């Protein structure tokens, strides 16, 4: 365990990256996924088609390829994130939200959004048609029907699948490690490289922290589910 304790600051910093990747991509993918779901169930054929096309393309592409696209192919067509350079100083060293972090976050966001969209759509399909009809009957336009009546109920039905999507996201952040962000998985591999004798304690320490993080998400989802449940 010594090597873990010795490097505790570096490990904390690595998990800070993991959590930041998760939080930013989590919020971003929820917003983008909700818009996509709205497009997919909406009345405008072009948007329906575009939403379905997005989900088909992105959901069927391995995450690593989506991120590689933003990391290595996008710069070649001058899609760069060099304007992003935020430095957050901490006791354990700077957290750098730079062009690489941004590219990985965008990749994670776009990938996860496809799954958020489908989780929400399953929730939307679970809302009885009569709810939308009643909302239309009081004169709400499509946006209002979605915002005030369908989505709040769809969201409730979608919490368990959405929690799954977000749990997958926090684990998927490790892919960013292979592509330039010094997150937890990279730090774990680095420590094992420094001291392979401590392989098992290192592995247990990192797995335990991941378990705690995922449990926090599960707990939050469970609380949310209970709060929005209607008697």
């Amino acid at each position, binding site marked *: 365990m010594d090597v873990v304790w010795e490097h505790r600051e570096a490990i904390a910093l690595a998990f800070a990256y993991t959590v930041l990747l998760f939080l930013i991509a989590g919020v971003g993918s929820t917003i983008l996924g909700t818009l996509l779901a709205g497009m997919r169930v909406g009345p405008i054929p072009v948007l329906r088609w575009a939403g379905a096309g997005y989900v088909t393309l992105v959901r069927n592409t391995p995450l690593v390829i989506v991120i590689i696209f933003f990391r290595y192919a996008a710069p070649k067509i001058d899609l760069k994130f060099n304007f992003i350079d935020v430095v957050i100083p901490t006791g354990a060293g700077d957290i750098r939200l730079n062009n690489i972090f941004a590219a990985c976050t965008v990749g994670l966001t776009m990938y996860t959004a496809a799954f958020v969209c489908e989780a929400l759509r399953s929730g939307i399909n679970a809302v009885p048609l009569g709810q939308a009809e009643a909302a239309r009957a009081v004169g709400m336009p499509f946006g209002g029907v979605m915002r005030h009546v369908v989505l709040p109920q769809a969201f409730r039905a979608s919490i368990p699948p959405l929690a799954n999507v977000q749990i997958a996201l926090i684990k998927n952040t490790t892919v960013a490690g292979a592509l330039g962000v010094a997150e937890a998985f990279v730090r774990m591999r680095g420590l094992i490289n420094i001291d392979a004798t401590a392989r098992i304690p290192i592995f247990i320490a990192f797995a335990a922290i991941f378990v705690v993080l995922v449990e926090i998400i599960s707990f939050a989802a469970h609380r949310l589910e209970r709060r929005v449940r*209607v008697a």
Partner: protein
Amino acid sequence: MTVQEESAAAPGGTGQPLVRLTGVQKHYGNLHVLKDIELDVARGEVVVVIGPSGAGKSTLCRAINRLETIDEGDIFLDGQPLPQEGKALARLRADVGMVFQSFNLFAHKTVLENVTLGPIKVRKKSKAEADKRGKELLDRVGVGHQAGKYPAQLSGGQQQRVAIARALAMDPKVMLFDEPTSALDPEMIKEVLDVMVDLAERGMTMIVVTHEMGFARTAANRVVFMADGAIVETADPETFFTNPESDRAKDFLGKILKH
């Protein structure tokens, strides 16, 4: 219940019908569900649509606020043709109250929120104003004390009365009732019909699809009998129930009045 004027003529009519359907046709694949429908409903008139299952009654009702599209023909509301889609259609729907067979109360909103959502979001009323009017309407339909509950906590009859209050909160020009009592237990039917009769007496223009012959007799100005997607017969309730013209109507009444 007091009986309305027997006359089929529109009480207080201004000449132009409030709802007009001309040459309306609709198909579901090969099934011809609305056949050449011609129907005028005058301001303040209560029209009850009856007929056997599958006659197209509900489809007719839902076509009037375009929850169902039609293939041919025109529907006018207060002289305006029904818009195809979008904001104009939404505005028109705001003026047409609709009560569904399965209530369709917003499950995630309280009873009072169900009634005030439309006025606040569509009519842009203040919350205070909408709440005040909402409570009045809930009192009027007899569920004022349930305002803070969620729909699932109410009985079917109570839910349907909330649904009527929700429609009334929009100050509609006309109210559509699509089999409002069909999903209710027998002991709850009366409490809903009482509210509807009260509405009729206050002069609301109503189009009611129902199997409640008692309501048709007492509250209707006119009975429209439909079968196989077509309007077979139109008459005042007294004439229709005592002396129907068509064989289809005689057959239908014979079946339901036996019990």
